[in-house]
């Protein structure tokens, strides 16, 4: 089986074979090739706009994920002293209790 097969993809329209989609796209390209320069110009403009949209969307997504990463880093750094105070307090208490037991035999 290939990378994606009919059993792998369900686009909400029943099972769709991605290979068929690619086939259709290639057929579209071939039919465009039969058209004149005006058809190609339109196709070119649409393709460039499409690429710009994808490029910007990817940059937007990356920026949003970076914000999440930065937020988590800052939270982790801010949380460490708070966690530390809780742990130090609890550990000190247990140390003192045990030392008292040792002292009293």
């Amino acid at each position, binding site marked *: 089986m290939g990378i994606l097969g009919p059993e792998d993809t369900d686009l909400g329209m029943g099972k769709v074979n991605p290979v068929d989609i690619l086939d259709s796209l290639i057929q579209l390209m071939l039919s465009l090739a039969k058209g004149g320069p005006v058809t190609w110009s339109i196709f070119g403009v649409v393709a460039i706009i499409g690429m710009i949209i994808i490029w910007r969307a*990817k940059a937007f997504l990356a920026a949003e*994920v970076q914000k*999440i990463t930065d937020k*988590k880093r800052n939270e982790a750094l801010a949380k460490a002293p708070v*966690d530390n105070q809780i742990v*130090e307090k609890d*550990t000190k208490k247990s140390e003192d*209790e*045990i030392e008292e037991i040792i002292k009293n*035999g």
Partner: protein
Amino acid sequence: MKKYLLFFLLFLASCLGKLRPDPSPISAYDAGYPTVEFYACDQRFNGVGICPASPNTHMSLLIQGYYKGTIEAVSDRCRVNYKARYDNNTPAVIDIEVKESCNIDIVVTPEYPNEAKSALEIAPLKGRLYIRAFTDALPYKLQSNKVQQGTDEMFDLPDAGRVVFKGCGANFDRTFDRKTFIRLSELVSVTKGDCTFNGVFISGGKSTRLIWQVWIYDQTFTQIPIPSVNIKKTQLVVTADTAVSISAIDQDYIVKNTAKFDFEPKVGHTLRLLTIKGRNLWGYWDPKTQTWGWVK
């Protein structure tokens, strides 16, 4: 047609860069699984560790950095408040003046190349060193465990006798007439988080201090598998899990899950692997036995 699809997918893969997505459902940090690598009291620790010490002495804490980023270490009781940036896998070295027992919390936040373009979420790493200062020469037993949620762990007792454990809400006090062990579930009903227990074992009028450090981590968290490692003359060829982003040997590193490093089999080496979700693995090369030992 499948050929075109394959080319398209390869093109997409080449756009993703060298950082690898980590399919783990949870990061090591969020899972409560400490993975900061540090050295203290002549030992190397993976995330958690206990060091015995005497009051009014100095101790050196070395924290390993990955790629570049920030290292933070804090402790109120040991007056540690360290925060600094690092580069090139450089470790941070902190001198600690031990006045009393303390817990040092450590956070390492690596920043990877092209991270801002990767659209992959990067997680920080955490760790904790418990320095236990003893004012006398009583014997002690130290134990650190990372325990998966839903499982149990044991602490072996030295002999028959009375055992007391305190800390993290535990109030355990029992006398055993034979050598046995204590289950973690007997001490606390905590299902996730970290606990440091202080205890004492009394037998025949003699006391032994017991210290048990436990991290209960999320049950969905899994460790990365041991990589394929081949030595070819003076080269080490590493093929790690596809989730691995950083492969490093000693201070040499590469942002990739497969790597070739210069390798001298007659000396010791440390191989480190790390994913962007903070899952890690180390390998030690023992030049005497010519074998690898692995720590997760």
